[in-house]
């Protein structure tokens, strides 16, 4: 592994510049701030240790998103082995049982997270990349390493699922 000392300065600067969006992507993917931070940390660690694999001239943010998504897949496998899977339909109630989450429930962020967590992970990743991070379908397809048509169908299914979960629309707020 290349030590951190081997990471070029401009790359470190670019990673720092990309951190806010990486944090948002990781938090949306993971479902809460704590797991999102863990995912971001794991992503950055991997990016730093593999900085030599980054292709100059390509988008660093996309590269980080790709690493994050792959780390998330690894983490999901681990938690499945632990039997920590949560039935999607139980999620809103479960979140209400936790003190911190109950406080957060008041916020739009918690409502958005509940909707997102009801969407299967691969669809959620596509949705976050395009709708929240503003990537094109082509860019999202590259990040997720799937055909363009797969991104299109995942995003459509994500939106249909969100619609189903939130009832008519999530925007029914004061």
């Amino acid at each position: 592994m290349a030590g951190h000392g081997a990471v070029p300065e401009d790359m470190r600067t670019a990673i720092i510049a990309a951190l806010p969006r990486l944090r948002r992507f990781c938090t949306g993917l993971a479902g809460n701030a704590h797991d999102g931070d863990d995912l971001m940390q794991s992503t950055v660690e991997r990016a730093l240790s593999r900085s030599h694999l980054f292709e100059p001239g390509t988008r660093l943010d996309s590269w980080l998103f790709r690493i994050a998504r792959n780390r998330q897949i690894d983490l999901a496998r681990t938690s499945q082995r632990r039997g920590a899977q949560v039935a999607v339909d139980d999620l809103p109630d479960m979140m209400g049982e936790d003190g911190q989450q109950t406080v957060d429930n008041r916020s739009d962020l918690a409502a958005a997270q509940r909707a997102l967590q009801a969407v299967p992970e691969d669809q959620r990743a596509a949705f976050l990349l395009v709708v929240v991070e503003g990537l094109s379908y082509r860019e999202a397809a590259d990040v997720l390493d799937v055909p363009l048509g797969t991104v299109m169908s995942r995003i459509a299914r994500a939106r249909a699922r969100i619609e189903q979960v939130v009832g008519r629309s999530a925007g029914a707020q004061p």
Partner: protein
Amino acid sequence: MNPDFEQRLAAWLDGALPPDEAAAFEAELEADPALAERAANWQVNDRFIADALAPLAQAPVDDVLLARLGLAVAEPRAAALPQAANDNLPWWRRHAIVMGSAVAASMAAVLILSTQAARQPRPDDLSLALETTPSRGTARLADGRTVQPTLTVRAADGRWCREYRMEGGVGLACRDQGRWKVEAKGAGAGPDATAQIGLAGGADGSALDAAYARLGASDPLGADAEAAAMASGWNAR
């Protein structure tokens, strides 16, 4: 609702339909209120979620976090770089969205460019600030002056250009071979003139009009596009 309609609706919302298909789809929506309502619902949901998540990308990236991530700057030279790249400003992205007061408050965030760097003003301090500071963020130069980038555009020749406020004036600099070179300066609103910097208009842009015309500048980038350009090291897409 059939999957074909859903995919076309999604692609239409994302601007991914070819023009003729988009026109045909819009005609379909006009002819069928139920479809149109569904399209509106999706759009509202998108916007709600994007808005709800926006603050996550605005929280400051502080030294503790950088240290935890192994990104803390150690070498003296690096001390001139921003310690935080925050305020990755929100919402003039695809959907125009009204900004809340919480966002206005977050604009007060100041990026300290250097506390330990050389006391002498460095000739490329401004360049460093423009390289790494999001629009509406503030960078403090080693000599104490502050710079506020206000917007980012693309010149007709492909260069990135950024308007900024500094020392009570406005300037426009374009990136050339890794350095931001000042193309024009003018009198304008000072950095304290407003708590909420104009989204697209910049400061008193009139001073820079000639330069903008000469450069054939594009419309200003949205915050996400700007962040993406910054993250890519200002590479051409």
